[in-house]
């Protein structure tokens, strides 16, 4: 988590996003303990208050649970993990489609392009 944040977007959201991705990608596994607020603050060079807020947001969405006196853990609730996974997917697709639409691509073109890309994945990757 050493890459920098965008200064024009709320840091707590960017940090939450980052953690969500790490959880979905499996970098952080269900039941894993998150670094403490201060550790995260130091490693990502942000204000501990901001990290605190990120953890609160994540907790509210259910993806992490804080256990009194022990720290914050990635949830082991499959349903929540799946829904986050789904949510991130939808977000990415939405962004992608938005950009394509803005540039004037039609749905058919997009689908075709995606299919071609994915089928010849190895070459393009």
């Amino acid at each position, binding site marked *: 988590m050493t890459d*920098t*944040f*965008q*200064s*024009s*977007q*709320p*840091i*707590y*959201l960017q940090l939450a996003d980052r953690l969500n991705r790490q959880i979905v990608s499996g970098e952080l596994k269900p039941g894993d303990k998150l670094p403490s607020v*201060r550790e995260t*603050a*130091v490693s990502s*060079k*942000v*204000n*501990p*208050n*901001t990290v605190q*807020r990120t953890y609160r947001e994540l907790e509210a969405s259910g993806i992490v649970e804080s256990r009194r006196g022990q720290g914050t853990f990635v949830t082991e609730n499959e349903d929540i993990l799946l829904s986050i996974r789904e949510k991130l997917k939808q977000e990415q697709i939405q962004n992608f489609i938005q950009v394509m639409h803005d540039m004037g691509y039609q749905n058919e073109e997009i689908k075709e392009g995606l299919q071609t890309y994915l089928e010849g994945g190895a070459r393009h990757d």
Partner: protein
Amino acid sequence: MIEFKNVTKRYMTKTALRDVDLKLDKGKIIGLVGLNGAGKSTMMKLIAGLINPSKGSVELDGEKVTRRIASKVSYLSELDEYYSFYSVQQTIDFFATQFPDFNKEKAEEIRAYMNLDANTKVKHLSKGNRGRLKIILTLSREVPVLLMDEPLSGLDPLVRDSIVKGLITFVDTERQLVLLSTHQIMEVEMILDEVIAIKDGELVDHRNVEELRYDEQKGILEWMSSIYE
């Protein structure tokens, strides 16, 4: 926690601050920005009780600030004059005797973290290392208010980085209020909760930084350039 009530500070030839009303809450790291001579140091010294307002009042927890507020405020001047005959360790020890809230273990921890040799005489320290010493002395006090006047100025990027990390590591963000003035916005941008802009002695704006990003999609630098043009 800290409150400026209609504060004006005049010197013989100029007005350093004019009609400033301001409230600062604990548990925040607050940046104070403004051009040279805008009144940043004046504001810091007023809170430290080292100067008195010409008009209005400065209060800490409802109590009028005097010089002896030093028991609740740790003030780091932009100057770095210490007693030159002392070594780093002796300076730390001396501070520990003057402030009952000084945490010597913490000082030792920060000193080790900052990689500052304990036995070097203060007069032989480089500017960067004097900057580090200031940070040690200021952060080792367990006080409600930390005032840091230009903690990063004139220091090379490596030192600035270690100071910023030191702040994140050693400030108790739940209990302490940190007010720091700086030109180096880039370095501290990610650690500020709030930012205060002053211009020609007047308070221009006081914002929560995350809200600023959320509401206006602006970073501090963009926000500042919209203020100072």
